């Protein structure tokens, strides 16, 4: 049954641009982008409980690859290179840091975005000679939407596959108790690294796909830490351990932020802060789990 539902749903979503206004399409792009980011983030951070704030490091790097290469080669080629760059970055970073646990990993991942931003700034100033690049790629908003939708579908599909595979099982064991995992013979480093690289590659690709909408990039514009925070809060809001959790967190929050920016521009940061606190206190496992918990509670009462 679901082999029919998913393709049909995907086809319907892909057909939306033919009836949507430009603004609706812009909203869809934003929504699908955050669905992709949150889902890709949860692919690694969900089961392992390694909270990563490095999302924008990869997302921004993807955008920068496009900015650097858009005048010298064809777009599909750039995407391939972007995926390679993302994977290579994640491999280097992962090998050196996945032994860190808990809060140390969080801090490191946050620093990573800053590190990459400063490295690119240094490179641009001292080697390239100017800061700020232009992206003139001949891609319409529809094209961006379709690519991002495909990436979102791949991400969620891949997560579903991983969840059922040995990798997924290993990651869950690692998340529950690393010592137990090690004693059961799970190769900790290799498993974590595989998930981290997959997740980071998708994040990097998402940055590359979104970048033509910016036209002009500068490290300060691209490596905006808010992206990392939003991704985490969206995934946690929906539930980082569930297949559809991140997507379900991303869509309502994205729309809520959009609504706030139009009607209550000054309260947006307050709302964001309150949300962080609220999610942690009320739905530590995500809204989905929270709702299920409520239902179960009610059933038990009636029984």
């Amino acid at each position: 049954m679901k082999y029919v539902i998913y393709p049909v749903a995907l086809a319907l979503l892909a057909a939306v641009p033919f009836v949507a206004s430009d603004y609706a399409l812009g909203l869809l792009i934003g929504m699908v982008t955050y669905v992709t980011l949150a889902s890709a983030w949860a692919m690694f951070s969900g089961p392992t409980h390694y909270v990563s704030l490095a999302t924008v490091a990869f997302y921004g790097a993807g955008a920068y690859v496009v900015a650097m290469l858009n005048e010298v080669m064809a777009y599909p080629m750039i995407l391939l290179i972007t995926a390679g760059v993302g994977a290579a970055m994640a491999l280097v970073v992962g090998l050196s840091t996945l032994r860190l646990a808990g809060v140390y990993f969080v801090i490191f991942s946050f620093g990573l975005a800053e590190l990459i931003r400063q490295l690119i700034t240094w490179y641009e100033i001292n080697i390239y000679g100017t800061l700020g690049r232009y992206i003139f790629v001949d891609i319409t908003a529809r094209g961006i939407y379709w690519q991002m939708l495909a990436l979102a579908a791949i991400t969620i599909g891949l997560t579903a596959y991983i969840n059922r595979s040995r990798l997924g099982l290993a990651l869950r064991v690692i998340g529950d108790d690393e010592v137990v995992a090690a004693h059961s013979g799970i190769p900790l480093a290799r498993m974590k690294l595989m998930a981290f690289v997959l997740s980071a590659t998708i994040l990097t690709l998402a940055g590359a796909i979104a970048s033509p909408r910016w036209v002009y990039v500068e490290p300060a514009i691209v490596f905006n830490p808010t992206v990392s925070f939003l991704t985490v809060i969206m995934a946690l809001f929906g539930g980082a351990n569930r297949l559809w959790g991140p997507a379900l967190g991303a869509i309502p929050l994205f729309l809520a932020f959009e609504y706030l920016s139009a009607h209550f521009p000054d309260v947006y940061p307050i709302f964001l802060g309150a949300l962080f606190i609220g999610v942690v206190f009320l739905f530590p496992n995500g809204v989905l789990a929270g709702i299920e918990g409520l239902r179960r509670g009610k059933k038990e009462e009636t029984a």
Partner: protein
Amino acid sequence: MVNLFKHAKACTTAFAVAAASFMTAGHATAADDTITIGYAVALTGPNATGAGISTVPNYRLWVDQVNGEGGIEMPDGSRKMIEVVEYDDRSSNEDLVRAIERLASQDKVDLILPPWGTGANLAIAPLMARFGYPQLAVTAVTDKAPEFAARWDRSFWMLGGGHDYATGLVDVLAQARDAGTINNKIAAVSVADGFGIDLIKGARPAFEEAGFELVYDESYPLGTSDFAAIMSEAQASGADSFVAFSYPPGSFGMTKTAQAMGFNPKVFYISVGGAFPIYPGIADGKADGVMAIGGVDGTSDSVKAYFDAHTAFVGNPPDSWASAVTFASLEMLEQAIGRVGLDHGDLAAELSNGTFDTVIGQVKLEDNQLRDLWTVGQWQNGAFVGVGPADKTGAAAPVIPKPEW
């Protein structure tokens, strides 16, 4: 399977609720006797400071003035009140692009005013071109303005490029050197960010061509707060002229550092922030003689009237660089509407070819760019006035050497 449907149902419900709240959020379409003008600027985030000084107050002041007079005059003599649609782009270009799409395709506003910042104006340029709106980009300093004006023929670039300001400064210094007031040594520092790099890149060859010797040339990262080391090296370099291609935090920090260490170069030049109304306060009331980027015609009555109106409406005077130009761009828009109406093509043509009476004097764009710009200003008797280019109407004579702090 049941579980799957439950999820799917939850998904669609959440989506439908959110979508419904959006549909109702759209702004009422304008009646015939109003003009809707939309803009998305940074009201929160890192760009909010700049937008809050040069852009937003001027938009609000202009709308208030125009509506106070009964609205914008149309070619047939009738008047239309302005209705504003304002969005926050949260200093993010992604949000900004979406806000422009929203203004154009959802709110269907008559005109869109530009955001603050070079990156922001470039991000929306392709969209503005696609929707056909004229874009009067003021707070975008870029040497590529001629290319952009050619690429998007309804875009207008009104604040020049880094190269203009660098060469403008070199001209002022060259005159002082030729008069024998300063030696031919320059100490320059620049912030390692887009703007600082553009300026120093323009300045290096210009200094060399004018026969100056760049005895100190150092860049510092954005976010630097301790300038004691570079300032003392600059002081030790033997240069009479200290030139900083800086952003406001750097400009302010270097001013305080120079005062604290008693560094009194004959020329003290800083960049962004030097023309802000708060600068004399930062300089502890000793701003006179400090040079900075920008300037306004200190002899002009219209500038004075604009400063008074701004002070009365906003509570503080405008900055003396981008603010007056921003306000002038709005006056141009108003006059162009009065001549040709609201058709975007006609408006763009009129902006491109017409001559306008504005707060900064008579404006006629060249290839969609404002080229008649103040490049160097100086604090004189408590006001920041334009000193370069020296042949521009109203240019004050620069005071060199600067009085000691």
